[in-house]
């Protein structure tokens, strides 16, 4: 190990303002839709108005005859060249992966599926021409409820049937754990379908020059996309350049190989002209992959003192109409997380992936882990209520103690490297004023206050830093989990950092500069971070799963180590001292004991000149590193939420929200805090506001932001945040923060609502907990229904 780790950490940990901001606050951005190329044409899609239908004819003649229309194509016009959109995660050997052409040819299976495309000189003409395409359909029966989709006689989404796969998993003697358990609780929870709603709609531009193509796309995954376009659509990889310019948020929704990307590439080749497509929000709500949509049955067995014995989980996961890039794997990312932070004797899990005639689901912030965390944190509250214990008390009785790390969980598959649930919870309780709020709650309940106070607890952990390649291989995932970085020492002593991570709001240009500034001892402002263009950053696995710092950051330090090692050889020649006597810190090489020193910038210049290098030493300090983690990282935290529920109106108001997160060491506290804020907001949105709603014919009703309620500033509280720290095993000591808030906050809010209403006999309300649903639950409870929660657990539209 070099001496760099002993250098004072001047940058890492500092609240550096972001380098990215200058272009973003002044409008000097490079969103994909901004791009204009000579001769560029505009695409607009004709999309299915039916959830399920056979296409009987597509008449493009009227559209083609319109002035300004260059071409129009139906699915049949692409023949075999359009191939099938890839699914990279065949989770079982017998999984059903239906053929998924980018444009439907014979049958449509969700509203919004592309059936034809018009290419025109400008976007208005293209939109006009869409209305002139005449498509005839024979409607078929839609499949809209996966709970009955596996019944005999159900209409079929695909000829092979509606089941995609069944994935069982377990460890320990689950029957023994449940047999004779003094307490067994079973609950059914609903993870409603969500729409990611990144603020920047998807956009793509494709341009061919000869047999080389450049694809600009609002994507999170330029590298994965390039590989997929080559591997599945027959374009030689060396001839594809993918550029993700400024990308306006993703949250998993831009972790996809989209039909429109493939079609843009094929159409630009057919026409010999560049083409652009930018979706409207309505088009996006229908056809950007959706998130969640699971039905969860969870059973927990405990001793009468609250000690957990076992946990059983049975999931039905809605795949939608097709399997997209990681569709079937998303629920399985949660499979290992249902036990959460708790010790128990046995665990069993089963997930059945089922097709429906809806938009496919896929990764959405947290991807499997929010669903798992919701279920375990909700049922821990139910268990506490059953046993007459405080929700925090039952958690403390069962969680892994800080001295027990590293700890292999009941799954047998995960070893948590570090954590301190006691510390995070103690700090959260203090900031929240937990005991005083409990006293206020008791007083208000006693006097029958019509506005009830509820306290919600979520003590969560997650697995992130995706991922050790070997583990991904064992789960049948189609790629590795490493990340790449390279460092280019320029002759003037400035530094170019090339990263395979692909930021779309995460601030990598700033945070990566901080890390490299410390590792190489060069000024923050002398560093430029390059990313998001496969010609500039040739190798990478991109940004998702809270992986960029825990994996990509480690690749950075690995590359810096190699730069220092190379520079040391040259510096020792410059200092006329043996290499083993030369030490490096703070950007300076020093000969042992003496006052002689040389700066890394001087070494860079001497290397560039290459006049006096030692024999056999190459004239370059440039280095790269590909880092493959040997474990996931496990951020955790305690989130506490206080809500006021108006029992007359059903209105829920979040009174206070405290988040104490342990994400290991922090590179930039401003960026971390921002990630926590945004994550909490997205989790609250699931708890209170958002749901993708299909009607009985399979039409999406929530196609605009007037119907799909992404919350505004007026709908959300102020958050109190703090951190505790138990460093991860990697050298940077970092864990990941991108998804933590979203994973933690949904159960914290719903637990608070149920805590407020439990004295009325309510034990569940299906998300989103809209005023109408809360009010109906209260009215039903008041009417004396035996189990209030089941009255609105059908998950239908509020």
């Amino acid at each position, binding site marked *: 190990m070099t001496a760099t780790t002993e250098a004072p950490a001047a940058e890492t940990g500092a609240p550096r303002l972001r380098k990215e*901001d200058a272009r973003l606050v002044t409008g000097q951005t490079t969103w994909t839709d901004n791009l204009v190329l000579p001769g560029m044409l505009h695409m607009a899609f004709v999309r299915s108005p039916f959830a399920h239908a056979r296409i009987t004819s597509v008449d493009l003649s009227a559209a083609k005859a319109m002035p300004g229309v260059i071409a129009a194509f139906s699915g049949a016009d692409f023949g075999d060249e359009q191939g099938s959109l890839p699914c990279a995660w065949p989770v079982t050997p017998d999984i059903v992966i239906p053929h998924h052409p980018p444009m439907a040819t014979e049958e449509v299976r969700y509203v919004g599926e592309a059936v034809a495309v018009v290419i025109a000189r400008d*976007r*208005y003409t293209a939109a006009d021409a869409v209305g002139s395409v005449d498509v005839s359909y024979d409607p078929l029966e839609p499949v809209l409820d996966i709970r009955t989709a596996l019944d005999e006689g159900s209409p079929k989404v695909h000829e092979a049937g509606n089941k995609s796969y069944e994935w069982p998993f377990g460890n320990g003697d689950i029957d023994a754990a449940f047999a004779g358990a003094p307490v067994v609780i079973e609950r059914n929870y609903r993870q409603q379908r969500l729409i990611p709603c990144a*603020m920047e709609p998807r956009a793509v531009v494709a341009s061919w020059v000869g047999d080389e193509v450049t694809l600009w796309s609002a994507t999170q995954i330029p590298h994965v996309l390039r590989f997929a376009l080559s591997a599945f659509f027959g374009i030689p990889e060396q001839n594809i350049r993918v550029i993700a310019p400024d990308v306006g948020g993703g949250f998993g929704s831009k972790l996809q190989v989209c039909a429109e990307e493939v079609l843009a590439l094929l159409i630009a080749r057919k026409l010999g002209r560049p083409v652009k497509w930018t979706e409207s929000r309505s088009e996006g709500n229908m056809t950007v992959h959706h998130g969640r949509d699971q039905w969860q049955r969870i059973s927990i067995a405990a001793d009468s003192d609250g000690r957990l014995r076992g946990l059983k989980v049975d999931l039905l996961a809605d795949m939608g109409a097709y399997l997209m890039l990681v569709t079937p794997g998303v629920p399985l990312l949660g499979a290992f997380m249902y036990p959460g932070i708790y010790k128990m004797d046995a665990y069993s899990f089963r997930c059945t992936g089922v097709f429906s005639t809806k938009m496919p689901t896929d990764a959405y912030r947290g991807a499997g882990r929010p669903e798992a965390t919701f279920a375990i944190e909700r049922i821990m509250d139910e268990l506490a209520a059953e046993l007459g214990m405080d929700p925090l008390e039952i958690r403390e009785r069962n969680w892994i103690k800080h001295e027990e790390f590293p700890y292999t969980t009941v799954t047998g598959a995960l070893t948590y490297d570090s954590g301190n649930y006691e510390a995070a919870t103690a700090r959260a309780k203090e900031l929240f004023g937990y005991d005083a709020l409990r006293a206020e709650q008791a007083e208000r309940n006693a006097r029958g206050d019509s506005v009830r106070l509820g306290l919600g607890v979520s003590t969560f952990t997650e697995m992130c830093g995706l991922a050790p390649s070997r583990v991904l291989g064992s789960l049948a995932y189609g790629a590795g989990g490493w990340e790449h970085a390279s460092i280019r020492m320029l002759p003037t002593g400035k530094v170019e950092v090339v990263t395979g991570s692909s930021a779309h709001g995460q601030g990598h240009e700033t945070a990566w500069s901080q890390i490299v500034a410390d590792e190489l001892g060069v000024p923050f402002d002398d560093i430029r971070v390059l990313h998001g263009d496969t010609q500039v950053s040739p190798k990478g696995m991109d940004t998702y799963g809270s992986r960029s710092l825990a994996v990509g950051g480690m690749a950075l330090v690995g590359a810096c180590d190699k730069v220092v090692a190379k520079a040391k050889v040259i510096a020792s020649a410059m200092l006329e001292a043996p290499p083993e006597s030369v030490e490096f810190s703070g950007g300076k090489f020093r000969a042992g004991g003496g006052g002689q020193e040389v700066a890394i910038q001087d070494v860079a210049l001497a290397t560039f000149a290459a006049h006096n290098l030692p024999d056999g030493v190459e004239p370059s300090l440039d280095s790269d590193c590909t880092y493959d983690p040997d474990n996931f990282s496990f951020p955790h935290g305690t989130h506490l939420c206080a809500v006021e529920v108006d029992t007359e109106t059903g209105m829920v108001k979040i009174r206070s929200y405290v988040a104490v997160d342990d994400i290991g060491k922090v590179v930039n506290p401003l960026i971390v805090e921002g990630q926590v804020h945004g994550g909490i907001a997205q989790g609250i949105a699931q708890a209170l506001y958002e749901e993708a709603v299909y009607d009985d014919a399979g039409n999406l009703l929530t196609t*605009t932001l*007037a119907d799909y309620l992404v919350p505004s500033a*007026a709908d959300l509280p102020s958050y109190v945040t703090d951190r505790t720290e138990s460093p991860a095993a990697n050298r940077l000591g970092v864990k990941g923060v991108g998804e933590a808030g979203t994973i933690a906050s949904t159960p914290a809010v719903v637990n608070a609502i149920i805590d407020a209403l439990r004295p009325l006999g309510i034990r569940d309300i299906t998300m989103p907990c809209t005023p109408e649903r809360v009010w109906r639950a209260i009215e039903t409870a008041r009417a004396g229904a035996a189990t209030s929660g089941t009255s609105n657990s059908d998950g239908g539209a509020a």
Partner: protein
Amino acid sequence: MTQINVTVDGVSYVDQVEPRLLLVHYLRDVLGKTGTPIGCDTSNCGSCTVLMDGVSVKSCSVLAVQADGTEITTIEGLANGEWHPLQKAFHAEHALQCGYCTPGMILASADLLRDNPNPTDQEIRDGLEGNLCRCTGYENIVRAVRRAAQAGAGQ
């Protein structure tokens, strides 16, 4: 085609436009002023907010012909030699992540502070209800508007 006279970020333009052309498409596609992005088409998200004669409008819901004779300020014209106090404050408070909503959020905030130079946090939240952000959870946006107000942005 209809002729319009519009001043955008201090430059006057005379153009023939289709009556149905949206102001945001006029800015982006005709003038090449791509600092103003489009987020939703239905005036819910506010990404496309610009100032028309000093008042915030959602340019996806204004026709270019309605802008005839007006002065439009976009994010590209807000700085005057140095960044506007709101631009400085959004940077200083880390009030943006992906930055897509930021132009609209800043211009809506400018209008908010013009109406109310010293808003409370709740007034800031209520005043920005028509602008959606998916990244920040709004906490730092509220802080940034407060900071800009203290710097006299609304005076």
